[in-house]
């Protein structure tokens, strides 16, 4: 067995131990960098490289070479080609080449009943043409636009997946995948794609019964979306969480939690663990998170790591908390001290892997030297 294969086995074992509830040899590290960060780090043009995905192997390779991680530290899945072919309004590029999600309204408030009656038909007939301008046309032109976009999507994803495979082999990354599927909490789906942040915030007061019925109607679709091709306890479906911290607890209990819990439970029952990005401040919801199926992966952006470890650390898998902003403003020593502090709190008892609180999105959002130093510190010192 080659050294790289041995390394991959060792790294796979670190994560399997975390998932199996055993104490691994060392705290595993899984950080990721955005495609924008990677392109800038490689000194390439942001616009060009996102369109010409053939360049990505060389670009991602530099991240793998220079930043320690036990799993592949790059993962891009939103490419401008297919969004542009669709005339997308929900993912657009800003003037500096940064693809972003603006506020969209795919469903009008007066159309809730249509969605509730048949979410799938409503998405096809009303919502897609509104979000994707190229689909707002006659049936045959629409079919062609959709075919082109899907061709682009499969081409881009095919290229990306091949690149990931080669980098996994070259660098000996562990064989677990926390992004093996993707879905959203039903309430977040309704908010992000259908009604917008402002729209949903007023809907829960103006038409609460309809919102409740709509999230329920969306749940089977969200479950289906989150299913992976093969069940495995070592692969997870990624669910980035969004709206809950911005809502009253009372509203969360009624509109957000029941269907979200149903989603995670249904995925778990089918053999797919969930990997949650717990965005913003969820500290008042920790008791709810505890109720989710055992071994749900939770990467925290914010909050009290001690409390999280105490309340959730024996049942779930915790990650995150390391403030990317410190990598920008702190000295190298301050950055390493912060890592030590978090390891002391989160590592005991296992069920923890090291990650930042959020993905560094552009080169200038961190001091690269600090980021490297922290990762190397954890890799060398976080032994059990």
């Amino acid at each position: 067995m080659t050294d790289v294969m041995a390394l991959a086995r060792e790294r796979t074992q670190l994560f399997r131990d975390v998932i199996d509830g055993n104490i691994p040899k060392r705290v595993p590290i899984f950080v990721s960098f955005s495609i924008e960060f990677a392109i800038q780090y490689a000194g390439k043009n942001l616009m060009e490289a996102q369109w010409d995905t053939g360049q990505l192997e060389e670009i991602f390779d530099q991240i793998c070479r220079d930043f320690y991680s036990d799993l592949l530290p790059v993962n891009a899945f939103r490419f401008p080609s297919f969004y542009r072919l669709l005339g997308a309004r929900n993912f657009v590029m800003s003037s500096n080449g940064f693809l972003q999600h603006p506020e969209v309204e795919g469903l009008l408030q007066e159309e809730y009943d249509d969605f509730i009656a048949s979410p799938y038909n409503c998405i096809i007939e009303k919502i897609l043409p509104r979000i994707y301008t190229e689909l707002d046309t006659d049936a045959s032109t629409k079919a062609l636009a959709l075919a082109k976009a899907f061709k682009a999507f499969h081409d881009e994803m095919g290229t990306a997946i091949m690149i990931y495979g080669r980098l996994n082999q070259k660098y000996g990354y562990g064989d677990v995948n926390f992004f093996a599927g993707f879905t959203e909490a039903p309430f977040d789906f309704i908010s992000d794609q259908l009604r917008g942040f402002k729209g949903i915030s007023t809907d829960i007061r103006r038409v609460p019964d309809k919102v409740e019925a709509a999230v329920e109607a969306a749940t089977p679709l969200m479950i289906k979306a989150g299913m992976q091709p093969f069940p495995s306890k070592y692969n997870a479906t990624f669910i980035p969480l969004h709206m809950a911290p911005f809502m009253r607890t009372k509203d969360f209990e009624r509109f957000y939690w029941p269907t979200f819990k149903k989603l995670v439970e249904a995925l778990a029952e089918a053999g797919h663990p969930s990997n949650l990005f717990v965005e913003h401040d969820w500290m008042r919801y920790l008791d709810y998170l505890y109720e989710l199926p055992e071994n749900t992966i939770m990467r925290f952006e914010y909050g009290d790591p001690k409390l999280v470890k105490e309340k959730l650390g024996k049942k779930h898998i915790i990650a995150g908390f390391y403030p990317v902003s410190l990598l920008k403003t702190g000295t190298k020593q301050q950055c390493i001290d912060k890592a030590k502090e978090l390891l002391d709190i989160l590592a005991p008892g296992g069920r923890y892997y090291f990650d930042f609180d959020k993905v560094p999105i552009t080169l200038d959002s961190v001091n690269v030297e600090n980021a490297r130093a922290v990762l190397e510190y954890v890799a060398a010192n976080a032994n059990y």
Partner: protein
Amino acid sequence: MKDLGKKERLLIRLVEQLDEENVVKLADELLNDGMDPLYLLDLVNEGMNRVGKLYECKDYYIADLIMAGLIFKQVLELDKMTTHFYVKHNNKIGKVLLGTVKGDIHDIGKDIFRGMLEANGFEVIDLGVDVPKELFLKKYEEYKPDILGLSGVLTNTVDTMKEVVDAFVEAGVRDKVKIIVGGNHLTEEICKFIGADNFANDASVGVKVCKEWMNGIKEQGVIDNG
């Protein structure tokens, strides 16, 4: 706010409960019964203060503030209110030039901030999203605002915000305007790094800062708002 009648107290409570339909109905009724629009505004403001308090003690969240802003706007748009305030709308407490900085196209935080500023009597010039530093500077020259508000969601906006502040320094107008930066990722150190006068992670804090600045400016009489 002493000796309030039953309906006045009800209006304040309805605002506090964010009962949109009944606030608008009752406000309209009170105006038609001859209530002074300014007095009505005081009552609604009192309700809004209570909403603010509920927000501070975490009974209300952003979603509720959005609703509050909407209710406020609807009250201001009632016929009797617009006719009254069109006549004397020049008593704004300050002028704010606002925009999301270049590279970032998020507008929710900026829009909430704008709504709350307007509800608090500020005149706001909103330059939209993805705004280059040159445009901030040009519009500054045109409008001479008291305050410049830079918004951003993406963490890389730190450098972009700094570039805007630097552009104001270079143009020699940095000391003529207060600068506030807003975004969830901002901290005191980052604010210093950017060179802004203050920062806010939250729209209501931002409005408070702006109000305090305007009070300070009025006391010193440095800037003439008239």
